[in-house]
């Protein structure tokens, strides 16, 4: 708990309190951010991290407390105000204009001007330069929406760095990035830190937190637990501080990868040569009953694209899909749902939550859609579903009548998971299901998936977190450059082997264990 005071804080937040109807999101929290440091804000889902950030940047007004920036008391009326004061923020949910180009998004509001107004060539040149600093080589004139959520995240980060900021706030910037990109981002963060920028970092990846931070502040239930230097806070102590009890993360899961799968019968899902021009080269994939199949690969390798074709979210133009041995046409999500397949998208905000509807309505949406509008779920049936999953997944706040949009990111994810589980599918496709989920809940979700699979549910599991993939899958399909390059048995590779395979195998190998 030693806090060196030799450096004067650039940002001092004292006694910050924010109450929402029914929730005390922050309760007298102190937080100090010093120049030239990377300071991680840690806490469970709903602990108040994003709220503290939004208090600093003027998105929410505070109910009590003071905020000082550069020794001056401030109360920013808007994010624009905060930006003008040198505070640049990347919010948790990517918040860009999807229909503008990448370049326009990066430079929005800071477009270089020539004689005749904005010089678009200069905009794109500048944007490309900023993107390059993150190791990104993108066509700056392509629409943002045409890129994956990870690329959008990186664009948001580049955008934050366009401003010559004294404070850079990154709320879960790495949740959709893979290792290479995280390294690139960290390199940029370090160089900014060395130039004296104060950096506030939020992530649920403990490795990353330990790799990049100098200092850690822990919140729990809206209250400050403490501020620590990173070397004074071992990992177990951090977790205990966050969740208020000790956590045995992995024990419950050990053995999931070794579980024997009977692959002699008819696969639950069988894809032969399924592909789509420019999206995915024709690929095969079988998923058997009770099996968890992981899909691994770098960003942009076609993981999400592949499962979207399987689900009918996008239409395949090659190959055929059978479900339970029967040829199935997958031209719309409904076709997949009717055959017992559910798909949780990686893009929570755009493709998951229905923000103004309540938590309960969001949970039952899938079941209700399947039954059709005429056969409304009775109040009792709704309550049963809602009560079961609120409890099983530990959604907080535990009030199912609030709009889902008011929940913290991680809790929204849990509600969406409940939506799919409530449909009782035979095959569940999970694209980054633990993104933005705190350590405790992550272990809960992994355990839940393993348990359901042991009971016979088939799962296709995508995660950028390779440890997680290795831990809970029984088979791994590896993609590279929008092509399936092979399959691996997770009991036969370790993390390094997998990383190596993902990075290099495509060049030399024909097909691995298949």
């Amino acid at each position: 708990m030693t806090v060196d005071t030799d450096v004067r804080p650039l940002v001092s937040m004292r006694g910050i309190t924010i109450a929402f109807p029914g929730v005390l999101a922050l309760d007298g929290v102190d937080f100090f951010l010093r120049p030239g440091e990377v300071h991680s804000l840690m806490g469970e889902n709903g602990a108040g991290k994003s709220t503290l950030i939004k208090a600093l940047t003027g998105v929410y007004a505070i109910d009590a407390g003071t905020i000082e920036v550069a020794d001056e008391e401030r109360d920013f009326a808007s994010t624009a105000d905060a930006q003008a004061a040198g505070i640049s923020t990347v919010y948790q949910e990517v918040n860009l204009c999807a229909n503008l180009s990448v370049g326009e998004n990066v430079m929005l509001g800071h477009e270089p001007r020539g004689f005749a107004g904005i010089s678009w060539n200069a905009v794109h040149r500048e944007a490309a330069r900023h993107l390059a600093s993150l190791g990104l080589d993108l066509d700056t004139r392509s629409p943002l929406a045409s890129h994956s959520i990870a690329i959008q995240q990186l664009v948001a980060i580049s955008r934050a760095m366009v401003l010559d900021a004294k404070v850079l706030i990154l709320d879960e910037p790495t949740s959709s990035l893979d290792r290479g990109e995280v390294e690139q981002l960290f390199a940029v963060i370090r160089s900014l830190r060395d130039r004296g920028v104060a950096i506030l970092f939020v992530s649920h990846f403990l490795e990353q937190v330990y790799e990049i931070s100098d200092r850690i502040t822990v919140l729990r239930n809206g209250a400050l637990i403490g501020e620590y230097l990173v070397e004074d806070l071992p990992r177990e102590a951090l977790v205990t501080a966050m969740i208020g009890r000790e956590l045995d993360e992995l024990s419950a899961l050990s053995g999931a990868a070794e579980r024997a799968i009977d692959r002699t019968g008819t696969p639950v899902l069988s894809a032969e040569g399924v592909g789509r021009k420019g999206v995915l080269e024709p690929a095969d994939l079988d998923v058997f009953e009770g099996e968890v199949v992981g899909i691994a690969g770098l960003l942009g390798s076609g993981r999400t694209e592949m499962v979207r074709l399987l689900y009918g979210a996008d239409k395949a133009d090659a190959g055929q899909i059978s479900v339970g041995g029967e040829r199935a046409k997958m031209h719309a999500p409904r076709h997949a749902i009717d055959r017992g397949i559910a798909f949780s998208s990686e893009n929570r905000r755009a493709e998951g939550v229905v923000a103004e509807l309540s938590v309960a309505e969001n949970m039952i949406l899938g079941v209700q859609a399947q039954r059709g509008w005429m056969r409304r779920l009775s109040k009792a049936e709704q309550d049963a579903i809602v009560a079961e999953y609120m409890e099983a997944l530990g959604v907080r706040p535990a009030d199912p009548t609030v709009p889902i949009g008011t929940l913290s990111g991680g809790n929204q994810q849990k509600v969406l998971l409940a939506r799919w589980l409530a449909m009782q599918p035979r095959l569940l496709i999970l694209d980054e299901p633990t993104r933005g989920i705190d350590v405790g809940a992550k272990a809960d979700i992994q355990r839940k998936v393993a348990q359901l699979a042991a009971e016979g549910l088939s799962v296709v599991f995508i995660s950028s977190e390779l440890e997680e993939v290795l831990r809970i899958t029984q088979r791994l399909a590896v993609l590279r450059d929008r092509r399936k390059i092979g399959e691996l048995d997770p009991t036969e590779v370790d993390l390094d082997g997998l990383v190596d395979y993902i990075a290099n195998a495509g060049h030399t190998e024909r097909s691995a264990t298949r």
Partner: protein
Amino acid sequence: MTLLKHRLFWPVAALVTLVVVNVIANPNFAKVTMRDGDLYGNPVTILRESAPLMLVALGMTLVIATRGIDLSVGAVMAVSGAVSLTIIADSPDPGSLGTVTVAIVVAVLVALVLGAWNGFLVSVLGIQPIIATLVLMLAGRGVALLITGGAITTVTSAPYKFLSNGYLILLPVAFFIWVAVVAIVALVERRTALGMLTESVGINPEASRLAGVRSRGIIWAAYMVSGLLAGVAGIINASNTMAADSNNAGYLIELYAILAVVLGGTSLMGGKFSIAGTVIGVLTVTTLDKTIQFFGVPPAQSPVFFAVVVVIVVLVQSPRVHAWGRAASARMRRTPSSGEPPTGPGAASAAKKHEEVAA
């Protein structure tokens, strides 16, 4: 406090204020008299004359909830009025109940087909709602003129006239018609899952699609209901004047309907809708119309008067204005002398959060 937060508080407050102002200015405004066992008077007239707008606004509410808009409702009213009156006029026995029934059924079916056409353009062909329904808005009145042969068809038919001018128990038939239709629509929307699925499609179409919601059918249905209700509105309207005036029937009603929906608290961005809110919105618009008559505003100035009141009502309902109001009053209380900016705790922050939630 919870009352203040209720989503219908401000719409109701606006309507009540409007009525109170009227009654203070002219006590006759609220006068109701009994004649031959029926009620008469300005409030009764408002309930009766609300009928066409009520039906149209109800359909509009559902369309708006899907992120759409239906500009063709006025034209559909004209077509429906033209169809029904032409059938009655061409019949050998315009006064018979059978003729009138046939006329009404055919007119409503035609309106339903027109609604289905709109829905087809929007949900199947993916045409922007404003453009898709503009087609019929422009073409519809031409069709109506074609049906009536370019003239204003007038008829004498007691059963048909009864729809708008008759009385049931104490109150006008037209009032009972709209109450019944509101009840049916509310029941269908909230007793089935249609309402929730409609809101879901309006709020996040892509998430809804991935969850397996049949958005196409839901959007299509909204336009069909809107067409159907506009058809009924057209019949009541024609029954009021007993004439099919293709140029003036339902003229600009689409805009008044949109206004009523918004006054009722349903956002033009789609999503959450409130049927009760729309009912209140319609009553507000109709009352305002009567206010203009009662105050004797000259016709030339009445649109301006109408607009001014609408602006006031909309401002009074705006969450942002509420926030400013609270911030200003808090500042007055806190700093009697200096004009210090509102920092720290207090109402300003509460206000900003309110806005956040409402947004």
